[in-house]
């Protein structure tokens, strides 16, 4: 025993007790540091009170046909448009093969007269115009992004310009005929 050298050497090919201790304490320290780091990283994620505000309810009964409103949900604009019959038709009668991001209008609107989309351009995050009467709505009658010219149709689908995808539809449900809950 006494002449055995610690560590793995030519005379002593076996891993020694010291090797084990070094590995075991190194591993323990690594786990400890990771356990300490976890709360320090997680604290930057949304807190409980922020999450508690992450769903909102909206009464649609006051929105006239053809009118749009913008509500704030999780700090972002959500566009709600009460679509006219022409707008619904325009959205429905599109050759999906022509679309950069093909999607059927039926998948995007739970009820045809109501379109609910997140009002953030999928290019680089500007808010497209077209909510107010007289604002530029682009060639397809939906929205027009002033930043780099992306154009969206009456279903919020990208038709022209640099944006890659359609305006996203947030998860929402009709909790009454006239009331939706977003989030």
């Amino acid at each position, binding site marked *: 025993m006494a002449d055995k050298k610690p560590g793995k050497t030519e005379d002593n090919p076996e891993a020694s007790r010291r090797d084990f201790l070094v590995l075991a304490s190194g591993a323990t320290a690594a786990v400890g540091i990771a356990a300490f780091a976890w*709360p*320090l990283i*997680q*604290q*930057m*994620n949304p*807190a*409980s*009170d*922020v999450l508690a505000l992450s769903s909102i309810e909206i009464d649609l009964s006051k929105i006239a046909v053809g009118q749009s409103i913008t509500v704030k949900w999780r700090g972002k604009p959500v566009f709600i448009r009460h679509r006219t019959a022409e707008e619904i038709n325009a959205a429905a009668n599109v050759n999906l093969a022509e679309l950069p991001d093909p999607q059927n209008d039926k998948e995007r609107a739970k009820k045809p007269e109501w379109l609910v989309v997140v009002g953030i351009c999928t290019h680089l995050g500007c808010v497209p115009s077209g909510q107010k009467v007289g604002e530029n709505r682009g060639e397809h009658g939906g929205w027009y992004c002033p930043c780099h010219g992306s154009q969206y149709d009456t279903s919020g689908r990208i038709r022209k310009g640099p944006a890659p995808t359609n305006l996203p539809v947030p998860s929402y449900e009709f909790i009454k005929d006239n009331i939706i809950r977003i989030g």
Partner: protein
Amino acid sequence: MSVVFKNRLVRWIDHRMPIFSSLHHEMYEYPVPRNLNYLWNFGFLAGLMLIIMIVTGIVLAMHYTPNTTMAFESVERIMRDVNYGWIIRYIHMNGASMFFILVYIHIFRGMYYGSYKAPREILWMLGVVIFFLMIVTAFIGYVLPWGQMSYWGATVITNLFSAIPWVGEDIVTWLWGGFSVDNPTLNRFFALHYLLPFVILGVVFLHVIALHRFGSNNPLGIDMKRPQDSISFHPYYTIKDAFTIGLFLIFFCYFIFFNPNYLGHPDNYIPADPLVTPAHIVPEWYFLPFYAILRAIPSKLGGVLLMGGAIAILFVLPWLDRSPVRSGRFRPMFKWFFALFVINCFVLGYCGANPPEGHFILISRIATAYYFAYFIVILPLLSVLEKPKPLPASISESIYQPKNHLE
């Protein structure tokens, strides 16, 4: 000496900026006396604690709001809503207490083994600067949650400056940025509480530079003379320090997880009210001895001066104790006066925690007298009167002589 690194990138950088060589020199081969006991681990632990405080403090600052209308609630939000906010706050809160425990032991260690004596006077004085900065940082930090104790602690401590003749009131107004402790005070306290730990970090850096000039003192208080007297910092003392980190973290975790508010005051969970002072207002435990000195003196200015003097006198300790022998082990009389000094600090702390009535007044006056007498009378006299025991010839000799070993 000069090491050759295997990694070529390391070599390339080191040739242009010798950071790896100096780390190797100061943290690997750095020679340390081979006979240190566990009291020499507390400086390392204090450094670890400083890092923990800075890390958790920055995280808290991401959620805290330095405004009188929102500060208290922002802290409650950290406790209830922020992910793991409760544990981060409890670490920071109890960490302050741990930091003082470690540093008090560290200071007493230095006082017993004469680590403040030549050639380590600057090292010692930098330590006192760190201690002073820690006191200011801890006091200011305690104000931030804006509870009742925060508010009244801030009021009482800032009012200490009003004792200064002529300009006292103006200084207090200047500190407050108004006519009472209020939003401007809280806002500037937050700015300073964020700044000071980094100042401490800088002074710790100087402290370590000064330490490495002559290396650590040791329980025998004699210099390292031969290579046999020392061992390299790594792996011997890195392992020893790592071991005590484990023990210390267990102690620390007991408070964080099982008794997080034991060292605090329940009144600080009541929002600050400038119109009502709590019945018992006491500072945090680590200030109690100094608080007792403040109250022991029946004069406003006198109390403030003595309280400040209790810290300031540490600066000149190297010149009050003229005994050529460092370690208390070889000083048969000093030993006992030092032990009494430590007990006396606890007595002062005990008095500080109790209302200044009845026999507490008398006890705190006697204890205050002993505190100062230790520095001004006892140490200078012992330097002349005491006959030290003979010192061993060298560190290694004292270890290898079987006789010494047995006794």
